[in-house]
């Protein structure tokens, strides 16, 4: 039986609800900024936690939807250098671990179909 557009979109809605609509590269794990390798890009989806750190990040331009590129990592577990919107920021690994990212330019639908 052919999957018509109508039926496939219904299926996707069901998958969405089950997965709580959290766009993920992998159906089970979240991707953090710290997981990226130099040269990789991603979009910020969400910043975990709150307080001074999140405020600071937002002031510096790290808001949901912005695209980041990891430029390099300092050796021995040091900070990451990240490019966004044409300027550079440095952040510690622990701080990068709080930034949940998604791959850029990919529709959530494509990914869900691709990985599961």
């Amino acid at each position, binding site marked *: 039986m052919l999957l018509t557009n109508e039926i496939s979109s219904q299926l996707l809605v069901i998958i969405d609800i089950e997965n709580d609509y959290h766009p993920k590269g992998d159906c089970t794990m979240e991707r953090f900024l710290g997981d990226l390798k130099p040269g990789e890009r991603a979009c910020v989806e969400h910043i975990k936690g709150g307080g001074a750190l999140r405020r600071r990040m937002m002031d510096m331009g*790290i808001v949901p939807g912005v695209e980041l590129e990891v430029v390099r990592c300092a050796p021995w577990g040091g900070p990451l250098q990240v490019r966004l919107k044409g300027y550079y920021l440095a952040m510690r690994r622990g701080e990068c671990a709080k930034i949940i990212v998604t791959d850029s330019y990919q529709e959530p639908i494509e990914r869900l179909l691709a990985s599961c």
Partner: protein
Amino acid sequence: MKIALVGNPNVGKSTVFNALTGSNQQVGNWAGKTVERKSGIIQRATQEIELVDLPGTYSLTAYSQEEIITREYILREKPDVVMAMVDASNIERNLYLVLQVLELAPRVVVGLNMMDLAQTTGITIRTAELASALNVPVVEIVAAKGKGIEEFLTEAIRVGKLEQDPLPIEVSYPDELEQRIQAMEALLAGTAWAAKYPLRWLALKRLERDPEIGQEWKRSTALSRKSKNKDSCCDSGDAVNYELQETTVLPGEELLRAYEAEGWGKDHFEMAFADAKYKYISQILPRFRTHENLTKPTWTDLLDGWVLSPIWGYPIMLVVLAIVFWGSFVASAPIGGAVSQAMAWAADVLVRLLQWGHVPDFVQSLVRDGIFAGVGAVLAFVPQIAIFFAFFSFMQDSGYLARAAFLGDRFMQLMGLHGKSFFSLVSGFGCNVPGIMATRTLEDPKDRLITMLINPLIPCVPRLGVMSAVVAAFFPGSRGSLVMLSLLLISMILVMFSALFLRRVVKQTERSAFVMELPLYHIPTLRNVLIPTWHKTYSFLKRAWTFILAASIVVWALSSYPQGVPMSATWAGKMGGWLAFIGGPLGFDWRIMVAIVFGFTAKETTLSTLGILYGVAADASQSIAQAMTGAMTPLRAYTFLVVYMLYIPCLASVITTYKESGSLGWTSFGVAYNLILSFAMGWIVFHGGLALGFQ
């Protein structure tokens, strides 16, 4: 007319400010804060303008000192116009601040800087479109070359003189947010505050439960700012103080609680507003900005490829540090020597005059051995710190300092410190005074305080000099280098331990964010290097000279009286005897205690003090050290070195700590901590050594 200069850090504000005010600036501290305050008076065609350089900040919330100061200034002082500096290569984030400023102060002129640098990254901004998108005048500047600055000021004066406030643009908020804002606006519309401040801004802040709105502040002292004292270019001390006159509780409490029940607490509003502003900016961005992705890397990328590379980064940093240290402390030695000689010559001349005038001997001695010797010793090291400040300003302005913080952060993390502390601590090896002053780059006040307090534990060049002389005398040959290394290791371990310990004392529970900008490299202007150097050196001297003069006189008096008796019977000697009970457990006799007390004023003089105490009149440090070998065992010498290395560097560093921290309490704590730690370590070393079988 009052004009305020705002903008992100590294955007070139200081360049514009320095260009407009020249050496006509007043530098001090904001009242009750340890952030530098810079203001200057300029004249333009019969118009007298007070220009205030507000601290660089990314936002106008109320969570960092810089933000609080910027916002308070705009709220309380109500400048006629705000000059907002914007970096063309970074425009989205800069506009985030500009939008917040526009909410609060409708009269704004934007200075668009670094267009040339933006071009190299492929970014072009259409100035006219930007101006129409924001509905504010935009002036193009290339601050580093001095272009456009005068036009910027002229435009600002024009806007300041407008009859009516220009209409601000409205950031479009999503519907559910907009409803709530309007509901709050309706509640606040009738209040007295709504007449004085933009209603929308008031509503936004009320929704965020901002503590500042509703408070009415008046200046409590009419300041010497009005004085014609153009020559006092620096250190006006603490500036305007404010008194809380009244607090009105603005309406809206019930509404806020209703929103909280729906899940819209103040944090939620904060985030929603920030988000909305960024979205608004990305909407209007294409109207004035084009970005081509260039394949050619920028200068910054190329340099960072070396400077931040895992292999080359650290060697490069070592080389840079070596150059800075060499230039500041070695190459400047002739200048320092010349200053010393000039002081000695001046002392001689003065003494001869006094002799001619039949002034009693003790006055001559006071002048030559007390005043000129003591003050001269400190003046001789001013060239060193001035050159060091110049290097520091260069590195900060060029952008290299951020890279050093990036590379050093891993080690700083181990100690619970911020990467920016790295340079401050390393500078301590040269001299603790610039090291302590370098803590200004740290944004969090607690980070700054901790770094300041542990800085004295790092042995500076004068201390290292004395230490190597004593080590060479007591532990000749290769043993000497091992001993030296062990001493430095002790110092490093104590620095780490103190950093972690002080975090508890200072009660820093939440670690400050490291998130730091790595600005594009650029060559600083000469003005941007020389003016801060001049200010820092001058302000240091101004604060320090009275204390150092007093201390030199005291030292002289203690060691010269009563006259004609052997050293041990002078007041200094007796004092050493009283203090021997402290030194006893460490194996120190009265002479060492005297040397330690006198070493408080300046470490360079310790060896000559010891020479006098041991009856050696020689000038060379080597022979003094040799003389000491006859008077004490290697273990005692080692103990002495440990204590000497760790306890307070010098009076100048204490004064600098007081000035930078603004707190007598913390400075005294730092001094006490230093003393106790150094003597405790000395005791451990001495008795540990005895236990291990040394003598």
